[in-house]
């Protein structure tokens, strides 16, 4: 077990928040998702991680059933545009379009405006400091 707040060094920024970290599609690169999940946990959040290879429909259903405050999607396979659009649409079908979505992975600059327009609240890439990621999530969920 790691000590709490190893990532941020500040009071638990996400205490009481429930966050779903999900891997949509077939991409098997899960280390980024796991590192983020551990950092969210250390920042006080209750984290649910889906594991690999989940359909957008499954992710939306888990988000609703678990009554989460946010969904974090991780995609490194280049399929982020399709998978984000599908997840947004599945959440809306379940009347859960208001759950904030965060996206992490290999997301080219040129796609970011389109993804934000789809409803993604923040986009994170590998080189961002974990403390900055936590602060951005906390700001949106405040």
């Amino acid at each position, binding site marked *: 077990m*790691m000590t709490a707040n*190893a*990532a941020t060094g500040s009071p638990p920024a996400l205490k009481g928040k429930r966050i779903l970290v999900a891997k949509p*599609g*077939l*991409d*098997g*690169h*899960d*280390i980024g998702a*796991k*590192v983020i*999940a*551990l*950092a969210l*946990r250390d920042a006080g959040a209750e*984290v649910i*991680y*889906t*594991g*690999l*290879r989940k*359909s957008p429909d499954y992710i939306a259903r888990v988000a609703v059933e678990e009554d989460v405050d946010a969904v974090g999607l991780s995609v490194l*396979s*280049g*399929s982020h545009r*399709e*998978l984000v659009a*599908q997840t947004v649409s599945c959440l809306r079908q379940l009347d859960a379009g208001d759950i904030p979505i965060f996206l992490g992975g*290999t997301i*080219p*600059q*040129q*796609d970011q405006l389109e993804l934000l327009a789809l409803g993604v609240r923040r986009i994170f*890439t*590998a*080189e961002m*400091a*974990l*403390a900055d990621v936590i602060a951005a999530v906390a700001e949106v969920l405040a």
Partner: protein
Amino acid sequence: MLTASKTAPEPAASDDATVRTPSGIALPLVATAAHHAADGEELPGQYPFTRGVFADGYRGRLWTMRQYSGFATAEESNQRYKFLLARGQSGLSVALDLPTQCGYDPIDPMARPEIGKVGVSLSNLAEMETLFAGIDLSRISTSFTINGTAAIIYAMYVACADKQGVPRDKLTGTIQNDILKEYVARGTWIFPVRPSMRLIADSILYSNATTPRFNPISIAGAHVRDAGATAVEEMAYTLANGLAYVDELIGRGGDVEKFAKRLSFFFYVHMDFFEEVCKFRAGRRLWARLLRERYGVSDAKALHFRFGVVCGGSSLTAAQPYNNVTRVAVETMAAVMGGAQSIFTAAFDEALQLPTEFSAELALRTQQIVAYESGIANTVDPLGGSHLVEFLTDRMEREMERVMAEIDAYGGVVKAIEEGWLQARIAERALERKLDIDAKRTIVVGVNAFRRDDDGADAGTVPRLDPAATQDIVKKFESVRQRRDTALVERTLARLSEAAAADRENLLPYLVDCCHAYATVGEMVTRLRSRWGDFQEPVQL
């Protein structure tokens, strides 16, 4: 006017005892003969092969330059292969899309967003015939990064050679076929661990008998490394997986003196130069010792630790991407000094996108410059005898044995993977590494030191897959299904199902028959899945 950058990290003090390699080995300020056990007598090509498996090193044979490539349709990838071969590449390395890797046909809803994205779509033999059209499979070696469906893709390659009229014993190349690390780091598993191990043993034994010059497995530490493991852990986990395959093969009647000759390995090379060189020297020695001491292997060729490498991966940065050209050059030199048999140099834009023709060519040129201009390939194991290198080789070997003993103490790799223990360890290590970079305990130029305000601005536009390519792949898939002999497909698939139910049957001849009949990857996987079920991923943090 030039001034020292405010962000320049401080150098370590000469008496700083905390200077360590990334694997945590404390480094002396000056290494001397007292730091190591090497007596200067061992030669390359002699047991335990610290200095290399071949006495004549790269003078006997230069490493294979093998650039990982494949995109979208078989036609487009075929063009890229011809382009790379025309520029002096000596072997092909096929990147497959995720549906092919995970066993979904292009018409499956799970496949749709991923078709042709990270590699070429190869759902049936007709696609592979197109992929290698005009490329003589008896003259070129082909490496497939394929695991969950490796036995199927290998069977398809054999069938493709049959179609080209190439004798099977002329086939050279490699399938990765290492499922254990998929459960830990790369994620393209399909079936549970134990039937997957059977499929791997079957393909190795079949390949030894049918395509004796082909490497039916490349036991890979690369992905675990890129996910966060240290160089020591990368080698230790890989050798532990290697021993698990050896045990499985012996259990299925294989002769270790024979099959061990065709086992090969695959690793990442990251930036700590001496640790990378010594990782290979230590791993080569440790593997030979393990095979001799635990299994009594005596044939020198069966003790040979042959490996390919990839330079780049998570050591490359999206910030200031041109810096990556330098990183890959340093890593290539470490690979050569470590004695690699094949090298893939990643393109500098790897952290951003699939390579362009420009970046792919520059990556190949990087290793050609090391090969033909630097002179470092002229003498075997050129760093052998260096006090630092011999010290680190000894220490890393000891650390690798310690990590392997921890896995044994847990109950072996299969148990450690089934219960998610190894996966959780890697995730913790990845978090540590990330926090080290965030806190600047580890320096990454352009990321946490020497940053520029306009970082990333010069990356260029990322090419997108033409949506028409996806439609073409689906259309071609449908047309192959309409043209084939449905009764023959059904017959070969039914025989595959029966063979899967009989534990002692080798499944490969059945898979080759299915491929010849143009059965699809998804159809074959579905039959096997109905016997074996799916791997249940242990999700624990």
